[in-house]
């Protein structure tokens, strides 16, 4: 479980352009569930996702993962946390242009330096599962939008993390691809992964795959709804 306790995040603190992106947020995010952070643009959901995923530190408050404070770890351990416990699917996917699909998928595992054959096999298995095995050697800039997103998902799964964090995953997808994405979320959930997704897309929020919906506005959680099944 992830516990967010009284977390605030202020950008440019003390300057004229100070922005309070999160204001005293408290939230519990359950394991093995799909949690959606819902809200309009500028409500603070992407900032909250960054803090949960150890991409930044809160200005105040703390975040715990399985009872351990992760928001105050030294940078080296934050990086280890990002590598081992979280998998990220970014809004703009952020694949490295000029590298092949399989090389992109393997990237998060490089610092851990596993056996190369074993790593490549893992990457190929992830691609196979996402029906991208035939694209393994292709440069990522040549892929379609849907394929790019699936490569990003494969990359997020390469280190077999417990948590998958996705930022606005449907922002660049048409309806058919949203259906495909929902199918992949179902698959991950069935595998026991815990997912946190930021979105304001009703096709995701209203889908049967979502367990918890936390609504945000102006840097605050306004409601938390556990979806009845």
């Amino acid at each position, binding site marked *: 479980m992830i516990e967010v306790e009284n977390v605030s995040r202020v950008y440019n603190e003390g300057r004229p352009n100070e922005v309070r992106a999160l204001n005293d947020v408290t939230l519990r995010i359950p394991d093995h569930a799909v949690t959606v952070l819902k809200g309009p643009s500028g409500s603070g959901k992407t900032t909250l996702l960054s803090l949960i995923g150890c*991409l930044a530190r809160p200005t105040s408050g703390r975040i715990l993962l399985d009872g351990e404070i992760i928001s105050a770890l030294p940078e080296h351990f934050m*990086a*280890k946390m*990002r590598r081992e416990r979280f998998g990220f699917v970014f809004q703009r996917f952020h694949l490295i242009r000029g590298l092949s699909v399989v090389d992109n998928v393997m*990237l998060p595992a*490089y610092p*851990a330096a596993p056996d190369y054959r074993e790593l490549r096999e893992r990457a190929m298995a992830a691609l196979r599962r996402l029906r991208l095995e035939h694209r393994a050697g292709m440069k990522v800039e040549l892929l379609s939008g849907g394929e790019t997103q699936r490569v990003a998902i494969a990359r997020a799964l390469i*280190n077999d993390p417990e948590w998958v964090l996705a930022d606005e995953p449907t922002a660049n997808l048409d309806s058919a691809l949203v259906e495909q994405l929902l199918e992949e979320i179902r698959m991950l959930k069935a595998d026991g992964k815990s997912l946190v997704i930021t979105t304001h897309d009703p096709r995701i929020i209203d889908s049967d795959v979502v367990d918890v919906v936390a609504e945000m506005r102006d840097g605050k959680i306004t409601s938390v709804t556990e979806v009845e099944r």
Partner: protein
Amino acid sequence: MFHWLARQRYLMDYTLAAMWRRKWRNLVLLVVFTLVVFLLASVSFFGSAVRFEAKRALKFAPEVMVQNLVLGRHALAPADWVDKLKGIRGTRNVRGRLWGYFYDQGNGANYTVMVADGSDPSLAVAPGEVIVGAGVARVREVEKLRNLLLLRPDGKLFKLRAKRILSDDSALLTHDLVLLSEADFREFFNLPRDAGFTDIALEVRNRREVATIANKISQRLPNARVVTREDILRTYENVFSWREGVLQAMLAASLAAFAIFAFDKASGLSAEERREIGILKALGWDTSDILAMKLWEGALLALFAFLIGAVAAYAHVFLFQAGVLAPVLKGWAVLYPQAPLTPQIDRLQLVTLAMLTIVPFIAATLVPVWKAAITDPEVVMR
């Protein structure tokens, strides 16, 4: 240890791919870096080789030379000076030397014409015979003709039978040399027997007494100029080091310009590169991984450029006789005529050069990357 090596292999793998993706920028850096190393290494190699040649050449020079000065200019030394010098305590092997220059108008070359002093039997020359240096032999086709024909200053033809051609090994010393017997030398230059010698050479019994003996000679022969081997070596070093110093100062400026260029290139990290660093950090790469990757990138580029620059400089100096730098470094008279340089590298200078080029380059590229690498990876979310 194994894990560390495996990690470095992954980082290097990624680095090579990244370098290939930015190949044009890296190529420009490589070319400029190689050029700087090439110029600095050329000066260094050339300096080492010339100093080595000079030391080798002067090893055979007499310890002290005494010249007669008339009106402040070098004139023939009277023959009776030999006995006067023999009379100074501590001197030995005092001998009058005959040597001069002959300008070969047909070939535009200057030869050093000398009388063999007889200390080396292999250089003994009988009347009518001549031993020539490799350069003279080549210009005058001595090997083919077996004779050396010279036009005396009075316009008469002077024919000598070639006894031997000296090898290229001692080129700096003998390239332009023509060795004759004393009789032929006097006849060639129309120099009477009582006219004296070009200069007088001598050895000193106790090497630590060279300065004292030189002082005694100056007192005994006030008209004489006394030149010691150490004086020549020092003058030579000074003249050459000055030239080398000026050139190295100019090249140091170019090195500084290069460091600024490298820093500018690196600090001007493109938005693409900053984004890439952010992505890698967000994916779990540590700051140290980013720095190691960039260290590999800088090291590979710098080492490759250094290697190419140093090998090119070696070829330039020792295979192509330093065609680009020789006119600046040598001056027209210092080593005239041309002599091939013996490959000679001062390892300390080479290591210093490596330190002065590779280290600043890596430092110049790492600092801006470090600044980018310590920023929060959250930037990729925006």
